[in-house]
């Protein structure tokens, strides 16, 4: 494992009025790692993603992205689109596709920040624009093939079954060429077969050199997939470590199962 973390978060705090959804959270993710962020409902996991991706403005804390062999970048205060450009792409817990666009178009939107065509290019369709457009289609189709949706490329996104919508969100996020992929409960609502496929998909993505941070409630998936796990409860990090370490950590068991475990 490389020594320099690709993402480092220090003292991240997020308050909504009186509620402290995140409390001085520290977290490091290393290149090529699959990390998981777990915790009970309302622990602040989604809020963490929203702070990272510029949707929320954190109350305090430092967010730093330092890709290997590239200058590091502070993520604080960036707009969501700038965060995506910097190399963070995400999926949403409550699926946020573009329902009235086709499956292929959804992925093509992901290419927006990596392409340049402007209004006049679009009107004149000069060779440069045409080439770029063709590349966009080719890359997007390849991504759809990867997540197993190539044959429904022309369907409206809203017509896809739930599991397929989740995979489409992953393809769309990949189209932005991220360094770090953030997945918010990718297996929610999937049947065991779909979850199985998802597991190998996530592994494949990692093997291609991406780092992944996933939020997930499906413990089997988390334990089999993650190199490193962070556990949060009430916005605070209560434990971290490999799956073996976390599994037997009494604090984690207590957070998940409640007090009685201690006496059981």
């Amino acid at each position: 494992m490389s020594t320099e973390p690709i993402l480092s978060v220090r003292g991240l705090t997020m308050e909504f009025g009186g509620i402290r959804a995140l409390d001085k959270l520290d977290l490091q993710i290393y290149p090529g790692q699959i990390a998981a962020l777990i915790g009970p409902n309302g622990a602040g996991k989604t809020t963490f993603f929203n702070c990272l991706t510029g949707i929320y403005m954190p109350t305090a804390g430092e967010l730093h992205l330092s890709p290997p062999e590239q200058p590091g970048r502070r993520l604080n205060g960036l707009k969501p689109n700038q965060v995506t450009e910097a190399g963070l792409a995400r999926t949403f817990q409550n699926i946020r596709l573009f329902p009235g666009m086709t499956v292929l178009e959804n992925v093509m939107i992901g290419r927006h920040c990596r392409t340049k065509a402007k209004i006049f290019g679009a009107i004149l369709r000069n060779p440069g624009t045409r080439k770029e457009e063709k590349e966009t289609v080719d890359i997007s189709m390849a991504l759809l093939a990867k997540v197993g949706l190539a044959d429904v490329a022309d369907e409206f996104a809203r017509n896809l079954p739930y599991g397929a919508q989740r995979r489409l969100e992953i393809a769309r996020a990949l189209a932005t060429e991220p360094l770090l992929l953030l997945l918010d409960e990718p297996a929610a609502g999937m049947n065991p077969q779909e979850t199985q496929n998802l597991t190998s998909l996530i592994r494949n993505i990692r093997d291609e050199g991406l780092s992944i941070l996933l939020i997930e409630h499906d413990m089997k998936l988390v334990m089999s997939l993650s190199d490193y796990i962070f556990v949060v409860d009430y916005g605070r990090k209560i434990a971290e470590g490999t799956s073996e370490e976390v599994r037997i950590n009494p604090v984690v068991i207590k957070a998940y199962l409640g007090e009685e475990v201690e006496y059981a």
Partner: protein
Amino acid sequence: MDVITLKDCRKALIAALWFMFLTFPLLVIKVNTTENLVIWRWHNLLYVGVAAGSASLLTSIFRGLHDRKREQQRHQEKVIHISLTERFFSNPVVSRPVLAAGALFFLIFPLLFSTYQVNIMTTALMYVVLGLGLNIVVGVAGLLNLGYVAFYAVGAYTYALLNMHFGVGFWVALPLGGIMAALFGILLGFPVLRLRGDYLAIVTLGFGEIILLVLKNWAEFSQGPGGISNISRPGFFGMEMSMATTLNYQYYLTIAMVLLTIFVINRLQNSRIGRALFALREDEIACQAMGIDKTTIKLTAFALGATWAGLAGVLFAAKNAYVNPDSFTFLESAMILCIVVLGGMGSIVGVIIGALILILLPEYLRAFSDYRMLAFGALLVIMMVFRPQGIVANIRRSYHKKDSAP
């Protein structure tokens, strides 16, 4: 299930009474102020009652049949529901000849009809341009703009003022009008960047009113309510033209404008920018998370939409050789919005059909001109109930198959 139930009849009766009550002051009482007489037009009450009652009954029947069809479909295997219009436009064998015939019709229109008809058609075509422009903002990007006519006014007054003060000709003013309107679009865009939905609608409505009030009251600048007259008509290499020729020339000019608009907007819609605009309408947060700069894309939408209104405005000033603020009231914005909603948000063909219907029908049904607004309202309500996606639903194009026409 019967076609008509007792409940439907009762509903129809209530609807009839309710409408009779509502329209009573409007349709029954007529005050003759010169002779201080009140005229009671009771027969109107009868008409309203019968009309409302039967309309209610018809909707019930229609609904019933519709539901029954739905029910049947649900029992069959998976029924793929594709509307007639979608099938029509996705099948080039059928749609090409029809479109070709349409093109030919518009091309030889001035040869077939009187100058009066040509004039009306020119107006309708100008609304096609306006509708297509607003369609970018409302239909594609999903930003409800109720002050669109302001940009139309900007275009018209740009030409009128430039022509009055500096004698600038039509062809020079045309791009300038477009650019001015685009600038105003951006000007409006900045303060409303954070607004959505109703709030956006209210602010844009206000913007339209501000422009109108400025034009009305700042007489030194805009000549006030009296307007500006004697604007040069579009020239054609300095040729002298008779009145009829001028009208025909303007007709073809407008046709050219419509074609340009369709060409440009079609290309824009199927481009990186167009997709981003559409994504903005679909989901603003996801749109940003995909790396689209919300600020830029919103301003782009406003500027692009405004440009067409500006161009149409120059055309309008040139056609009438006269502009005054009365041409740019809220009613005009509402009209253009109706065109977009009725035709189908986001659909180019839909907007063209919508514009032709909404502008031409009232012209040819002058006898009913008193009920024009009533009919509009009814039409929109009916559309929203039975076909909310408009006459032509927006069809997404397929990018990856070779056989799909652009």
